[in-house]
């Protein structure tokens, strides 16, 4: 595409200065926001434990959680649709892993694979209903928010007479696939850092002398992996162009041969996949699935994506931006605690800072792109 002969000087092939090209990226707002947030907490919470090893791990893990669901929500939003069932899907997927793996006693890897298949199918069903009926995805997925949450409470109540199923950690002991979600990597490196005195170690108990942070959780690895895959998919492939086209103007895209319905359904499936990854990491880490898991997570995903510069109307956005949005959200949420903000005012602050981040971001985008 780059070497189209320039017979007529067309607007689309106009020379853009490298400086402007660097500035016009949708991630820029997210980058500025991230820097601002770190400066803010660097000033107000520097010696509060926020930047020691435990503190860093804490906000990193929370940000990584947001990132996993934000990647799915971001691609779906660029394709012009919403998924409000993400939070319920997280609870549902976790519960299914528990029911298959613990109640029915299946090997954990089968339980996980079947759950993934089931949840991605539900994602496909979501997408199918949206494209077939032409109803707003807002309504369709809102219905699934209730349907999935209902099953998540009903199934364990009926089968086990309780709403939390435990014993997953024991059932997953030594399972290859479970370790891919619940394990940590880089143990040796962290042990070395602990011995070298670079990070704190436990002072008592059976783990005395071991570092307080013993590795990078797989949750973070998944988050970074999904961000990378999502970014490459969106910016380097034909399918990525289709996603933008489907969300920008579905009718125009259809007329130029983009399989809009297929793109949208695939994105619903990907969102469900991300939610299931979130759920799998969570149940493997905590060892139990509960009916209350994932409440309101769909909004957190959408907030992260919007902070990251995507348009709610579709057709514009970036996965890296969404990832930075997730980082901002995670750092702000956990950081306010470290800064010692009064707990009943905590949510006021969260709201104000999030609003501020979005406004700032939009401002910057308008200035650099000269649009709207």
């Amino acid at each position: 595409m780059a070497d189209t002969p320039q017979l007529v000087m067309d607007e689309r092939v106009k020379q853009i200065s490298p400086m402007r090209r660097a500035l016009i990226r949708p991630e820029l707002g997210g980058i500025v926001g991230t820097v601002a947030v770190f400066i803010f907490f660097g000033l107000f919470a520097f010696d509060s434990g926020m930047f020691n090893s435990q503190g860093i791990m804490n906000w990193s893990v929370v940000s990584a959680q947001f990132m996993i669901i934000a990647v799915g929500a971001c691609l779906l939003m660029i394709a012009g649709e919403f998924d409000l069932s993400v939070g319920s899907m997280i609870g549902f997927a976790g519960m299914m892993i528990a029911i298959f793996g613990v109640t029915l006693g299946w090997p954990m890897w089968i339980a996980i694979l079947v759950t993934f298949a089931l949840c991605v199918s539900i994602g496909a069903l979501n997408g199918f209903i949206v494209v077939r009926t032409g109803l707003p995805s807002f309504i369709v997925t809102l219905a699934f928010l209730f349907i999935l949450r209902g099953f998540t409470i009903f199934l364990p109540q009926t089968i086990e007479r309780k709403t939390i199923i435990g014993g997953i950690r024991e059932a997953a002991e030594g399972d290859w696939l479970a370790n891919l979600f619940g394990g940590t990597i880089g143990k040796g490196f962290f042990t070395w850092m602990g011995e070298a005195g670079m990070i704190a170690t436990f002072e008592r108990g059976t783990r005395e002398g071991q570092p307080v942070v013993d590795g990078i959780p797989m949750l973070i690895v998944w988050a970074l992996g999904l961000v990378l895959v999502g970014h490459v998919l969106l910016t380097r492939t034909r399918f990525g162009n289709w996603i933008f086209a489907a969300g920008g103007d579905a009718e125009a895209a259809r007329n130029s041969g983009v399989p809009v319905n297929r793109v949208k359904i695939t994105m619903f499936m990907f969102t469900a996949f991300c939610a299931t990854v979130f759920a799998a990491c969570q149940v493997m880490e905590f060892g139990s699935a509960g009916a209350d898991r994932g409440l309101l997570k769909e909004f957190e995903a959408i907030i992260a994506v919007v902070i990251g510069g995507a348009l709610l109307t579709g057709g514009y956005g970036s996965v890296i931006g969404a990832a930075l949005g997730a980082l901002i959200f995670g750092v702000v949420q956990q950081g306010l605690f470290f800064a010692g903000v009064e707990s009943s005012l905590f949510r006021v602050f969260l709201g104000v800072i999030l609003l501020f981040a979005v406004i700032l971001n939009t401002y910057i985008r308008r200035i650099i792109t000269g649009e709207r």
Partner: protein
Amino acid sequence: MIPMHKLVLAATVAATPLIAASAAQAEGEKYILVSHAPDSDSWWNTVKNAIALAGEQMDVEVEYRNPPTGDLADMARIIEQAAASGPDGIITTLADYDVLSGPIRSAVDSGVDVIIMNSGSPDQARELGALMYVGQPEYDAGLAAGQRAKDDGVASFLCVNHYISSPASSERCQGFADGLGVDLGEQMIDSGQDPSEIKNRVQAYLSSNPDTDAVLALGPTSANPTLQALDETGLAGDIYFGTFDLGAEIVQGIKDGVIEWGIDQQPFLQAYLPVVVMTNYHRYGVLPGNNINSGPGFVTADALEMVEEFAGEYR
């Protein structure tokens, strides 16, 4: 365009007074109380008041934290975060052992003293290396209430469970059923947290099961709408109505003879005592040798005066 640094400055200035205010409390020890309760649960107000009072009296810094939606996985992160901020002690509920045992044990091992309050059990507290457990054993409280109701001639009941995702809630209903000597079966309903939904579900259940002898509510969240439901259906005072926990409306209900009894687990003590115990432990090295049972105590129409005065605040 407003320059970036001005925007940042504006936010910083706006945020400064509140941050400074909370940091400038007491110079003493710092304790953090972490609960599993969603924001919507009004019962925990007593706990907030109690730790604030204890913090004031003992001259220590106290903080209250909870997951906004009651998601226990979020609560685990809050405990990790509390430990990372380096307090002298953490007071936490143990709503689900699987989820919370890891973070609590890490906190204990990294040198932070922990007291388990409200949910959980003495055994679990000991296993995690916590100093002690302060609370009301849920199943036993339900059982005692069930036995009491059985003596009063109750044979069937409706358990209005507004927090069905917490195992402790179901244990209360199960204990009550066992105390009556009946099967729990379908007698427990998931009422949700919304008052009008709770009211309607209670009415629906009672009209489709007209021979129900008693109603058991698990706290003000379900008891207050249930009171209304009974009022509207004319069952108030006729049906045997017992509830866990207290609140202004529950106390009024007891006074009016609509509610038979309220089970007071005395949340005040659950929040107040751990702060006092830990402060004295850290200052003078003294520690009570056992767990503390804050309840159950049955509050009936006798001796309501003090309860009434402080209901919802310290009771």
